[in-house]
């Protein structure tokens, strides 16, 4: 799968006229200036400002919602007993799941030496970072006394007690913190050589200093590259099982508890695949938007969209298998309460969330069997959006339908998210969008040096063949 994309299509009409000299070398310079030119001379500033202003409003909404929550306590939410995990935890799982696709695209495809990854990995990883930040904020906000969140860490204290290491809640703390740290570092060492390229292209003093600081003085020495390559590949190799472990652990928050609809061994793979599914869908949406907004048509080609469509379809079908496996498990085991929960999902008060998930996740998805739909930006964007919403329904459904009617009939009760939960969710989208837009505006969104490396390797291979 290395035929045409890592090396952008030379016949693309948007590209300038061919220049003299070695054509490949001119491509290196053209790729560098196309990618590093975006932070230095950003196109369409007005559109960016409009989007940024909207995102800032959402961020303000987040600050207001969090302030109300802190001032008045979690009582402003609709959480109750029995449904003590509401929107906060379902959104936590949703955001974290989206984040996983960035790591998978970047690390897994690096290890498989798929060159087409190079046009996608940088912004997919940035998406991971900000999605993990959003996810990480939710459990902290959900704590009744969020300022005591550090009690999760094992530190010597005057109470002489330790966290309960046999609880998935303690595992969660370690998993998410490790994942955040590894994602930040993997993204950062991947961007350093490109920051050096931006530093070398910038003319203004302020830009030179800022990019120079973060480029760490990178100068592309062969010895540096050799060690960098070892470290980058090893971190990628470690990041792939990390993703699997993190989302499996999230699923254990549910599966380890004796709750009907949760207590099942299918949960870890079901969650990991659902996470990758929702994440690939969101990466597709972002790829379509960035390609259009920044005119990156020769770097993010229809072939990239095609491959993203295939990934979304494949993980989507695996997730669908999880739905079947879950139903089969319940009916085969024929345990009274589990069956009751299953029927609650099909026809209970929250059936809309079950059928919403099934329809939004899997019905439009089938269009991705068609090559023309996969290569169509609008089609792929709409299907991605549908999957994003569908997976949100799924997380909500898994949480609420299991909790609102468990074993003890006397404690059955409904759950409705309050205004402040919805406003926090909308605000959290601002928490995601604001840093992402800053990333798009000020940093190289595509890995220029890896695109050039792939171009070089392809020409060497072509010549050897």
């Amino acid at each position: 799968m290395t035929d045409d994309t890592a090396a952008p299509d030379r016949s693309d009409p948007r590209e300038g006229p061919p220049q003299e000299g070695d054509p490949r070398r001119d491509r290196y310079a053209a790729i560098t200036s196309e990618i590093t030119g975006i932070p230095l001379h950003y196109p369409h500033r007005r559109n960016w400002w409009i989007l940024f202003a909207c995102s800032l409003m959402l961020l303000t909404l987040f600050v207001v919602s969090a302030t109300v929550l802190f001032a008045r306590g979690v009582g402003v939410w609709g959480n109750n007993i029995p449904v003590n995990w509401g929107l906060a935890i379902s959104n936590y799982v949703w955001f974290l799941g989206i984040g996983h696709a960035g790591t998978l695209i970047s690390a897994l495809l690096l290890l498989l030496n798929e060159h087409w990854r190079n046009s996608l990995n940088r912004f997919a990883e940035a998406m991971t970072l900000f999605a993990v930040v959003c996810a990480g904020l939710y459990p902290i906000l959900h704590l009744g006394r969020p300022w005591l969140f550090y009690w999760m860490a094992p530190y010597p204290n005057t109470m002489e007690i330790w966290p309960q290491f046999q609880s998935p809640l303690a595992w969660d703390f370690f998993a998410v913190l490790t994942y955040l740290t590894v994602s930040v570092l993997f993204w950062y060492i991947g961007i350093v050589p490109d920051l050096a390229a931006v530093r070398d292209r910038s003319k203004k003093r302020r830009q030179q200093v800022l990019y120079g600081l973060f480029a760490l003085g990178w100068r592309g020495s062969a010895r540096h590259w050799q060690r960098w390559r070892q470290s980058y590949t090893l971190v990628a190799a470690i990041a792939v099982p990390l993703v699997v472990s993190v989302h499996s652990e999230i699923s254990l928050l549910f599966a380890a508890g004796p709750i009907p609809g949760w207590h099942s061994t299918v949960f870890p793979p079901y969650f990991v695949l659902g996470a990758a599914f929702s994440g690939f869908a969101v990466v597709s949406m972002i790829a379509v938007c960035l390609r259009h907004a920044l005119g990156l048509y020769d770097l993010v080609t229809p072939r990239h969209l095609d491959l993203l469509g295939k990934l979304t379809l494949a993980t989507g079908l695996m997730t669908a298998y999880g739905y079947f496996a879950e139903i089969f498990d319940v009916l085969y085991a024929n345990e009274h309460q589990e069956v009751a929960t299953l029927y609650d999902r099909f026809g209970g008060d929250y059936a809309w969330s079950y059928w919403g998930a099934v329809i939004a996740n899997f019905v439009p998805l089938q269009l991705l069997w068609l090559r023309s739909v996969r290569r169509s930006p609008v089609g792929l964007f709409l299907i991605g959006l549908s999957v994003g919403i569908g997976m949100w329904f799924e997380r909500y459904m898994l949480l609420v339908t299991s909790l609102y009617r468990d074993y003890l009939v006397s404690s059955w009760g409904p759950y409705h998210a309050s205004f402040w939960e919805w406003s926090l969710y909308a605000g959290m989208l601002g928490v995601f969008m604001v840093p992402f837009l800053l990333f798009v505006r000020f940093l190289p969104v595509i890995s220029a040096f890896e695109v050039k490396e792939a171009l070089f390797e392809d020409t060497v291979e072509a010549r050897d063949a």
Partner: protein
Amino acid sequence: MREPSPHTEVFGILGEFEKAEALFEAVGKARDAGYRRIEAFSPFPIEALDEALGIEDRRVAWMTLVGGIVGGLLGYGMQVYTNLDFPILIDGRAHTPPEAFMLITFEMTVLFAVLFSIGTMLALNRLPRLHHPLFGVDSFHLASSDKFFLLIYGDDPRFERGAAERFLIGLDCVRVDTVGHTEEPE
């Protein structure tokens, strides 16, 4: 590789090449000519360049392994220690069940392996280092775009300024620069 001290005449002589292949060839010829303290610069990693320069440094990989082992032991040890330090007896269950400790052990293994890996990479590369004599060369900014460079350090045992310049000009080189020191001798 240690850099020349400010006592040498110049920091080095830098040749600029249009193509990666020209750089490989130049590296080979420089080694044949007896130059040992040389360094190549490219806009992207090139494996063939490592072979040409004869670099083989596996320390980053080894330190990643060390980090993983340290993290794993630390993670497991922490859980065993805290559970024995404040034992909670529930239903006669074990105080230190390995199954329950595996996830955090794995996470700590990953965390320390990654920290050691990246830390070692930066330390061995002597980064961050915001200033470097090469940044004083006008065309060196192209090393991050599309040009390839070969540097002969000023403290190479065979280094002689005029000869090194002539040697580089004799290769398929588009430009030769003298890299001066940025520090005064102490």
